[in-house]
């Protein structure tokens, strides 16, 4: 439950292309860390290395260490599939399994872990849907397909699916960018609740969102197209948005970027 993350000298490559350069940062348990920065700066790439989704792209590789409570998830003996079972991820596009029922969607991860007891699955489904603030909206249609609810509901369903396995870390890759403002607000409220139990890392293009939901903000940038992205600075969210150390951060958050 709610583990601490440490990145030590992390370099990320796609084949010969050096995508992200020497990232060092720490995420405390039960906190929200936001990654911001312009497109192509590598913030989503860094997020995807945290559950080893990044290596699904042929030629992708990571140097350095990513430690989860001190254990390197890139250790030779660590299996990517096993790593992903303890780290939840929510994507930009809500992606429930369209033909699975709402209930089956929520417990899909649990089923993968071999849980078969129907009573236990039903309990977890309800608890997770309540945890994702979705229970009251779907409790009467748990057997309907997951693709049949609104986009905002689908995204909360995906969050329910991610927290059903009680992950050590919850990763969110621009979770609100496909949602309307009301749904966005619902997700942001949910993030504030989830923080009590989970370590959360969120990538967002929306700086107001980063300011609203996160405790810590990391700003990524790249010097030019084709150059690797890098972490400019990471600090308390309040400090980043009021008095950042680096001029580049100041320029970006005040809109003087580029």
């Amino acid at each position, binding site marked *: 439950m709610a583990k601490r993350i440490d990145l030590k000298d992390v370099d990320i490559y796609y084949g010969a292309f050096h995508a992200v350069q020497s990232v060092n940062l720490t995420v405390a348990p039960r906190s929200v860390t936001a990654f911001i920065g312009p497109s192509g700066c590598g913030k989503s790439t860094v997020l995807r290395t945290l559950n080893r*989704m990044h290596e699904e792209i042929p030629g992708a590789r990571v140097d350095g260490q990513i430690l989860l409570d001190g254990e390197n998830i890139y250790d030779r003996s660590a299996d990517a*599939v096993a790593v*992903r079972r303890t780290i939840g991820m929510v*994507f930009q596009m809500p992606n429930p399994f369209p033909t699975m029922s709402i209930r089956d969607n929520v417990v899909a*991860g649990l089923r993968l872990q071999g849980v078969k007891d129907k009573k236990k699955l039903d309990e977890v489904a309800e608890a997770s849907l309540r945890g994702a603030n979705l229970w009251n909206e779907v409790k009467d249609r748990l057997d309907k397909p997951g693709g049949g609810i609104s986009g905002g509901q689908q995204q909360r369903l995906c969050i329910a699916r991610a927290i059903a396995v009680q992950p050590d870390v919850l990763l969110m890759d621009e979770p609100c960018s496909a949602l309307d403002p009301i749904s966005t607000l619902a997700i942001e409220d949910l993030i504030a609740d989830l923080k009590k139990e989970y370590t959360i890392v969120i990538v967002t293009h929306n700086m107001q969102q980063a300011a609203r939901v996160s405790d810590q903000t990391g700003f990524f940038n790249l010097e030019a197209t084709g150059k690797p992205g890098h972490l400019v600075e990471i600090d308390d969210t309040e400090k980043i948005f009021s008095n950042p150390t680096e001029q580049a951060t100041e320029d970006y958050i005040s809109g003087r970027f580029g």
Partner: protein
Amino acid sequence: MWASSRRGESVFRGLTTGSGVLVVASIALIGLFLLIQAIPSLLANQANFFTSTEFSTGDPDNLRFGILDLLVVTLKTSILALVIAMPIALGVALFLTQYAPKRVARPFAYVIDLLAAVPSIVYGLWGILVLAPVILPVNQWLVDNLGWFPLFSQGNLPVGVRGTIFTGGVILAVMILPIITAVAREVFAQTPRFHIEAAKALGATRWEVITMAVLPYGRSGYIAGSMLGLGRALGETIAILLVISASTGMQTLSLFDGGYTFASLIASAASEFSQPLPTGAYISAGLVLFVLTFVVNALARVVAGGKVNG
């Protein structure tokens, strides 16, 4: 200048509409042709067209023909082909889209597609000269050991005759494999990336990604592809004519019977199409086959047109 471009537009529209209408019209006309040619013979038929197992057209004044045996043989060969080809095609399509690296997948898929380019006469020759002798011991083993099961009982052919429905079904399976594989490969490859990522992010293994994301998405396409394969198997003529031995015995449930399918019977009689009434008997059989394949293809469309995802 404006006028000329509009004229180009209307010419083009006329051409495309015309091509579309032409295709639909030819199918309708073929159906109509079969019906018109069949009706006089059907009226002169002394036997029941649907339940008789006879097919005797030697005497135009005493036509006796029915399609029951033809239907049974056609269905036995085609369904056997489907039962063999469907799992193999599924395996190949999943291998090509989910497991094989790109540089292996492409040439491999090309080879599978080449199977469709082999002329059916070659399949027929290979089937009777190469495959049938190889399969004979299998036939015999099944009859000896599982003969109590109706499908595997000794058929209406003498022991040792090579060209059985079983052999024909195996040949058909090879022939319809490419179409089923091609369609299945196409739909599996189109599984949305975000469904696959959803499964992977939950810690799904490759096989679990397939069962959670790929198969639910591609199932209807795979079934539609199989239906297209079935349509092809139902109508296959020359390979079946070469492979399956004629038999005067009764059709049973056995896969080791001989006999004729709709298509192979018609082809075998082609040299005798001189008098209109006997010819019409074969045309009636052709009409049934036409309707049968039409229905199967229509079913395939319905399945494929159904909602693939929610």
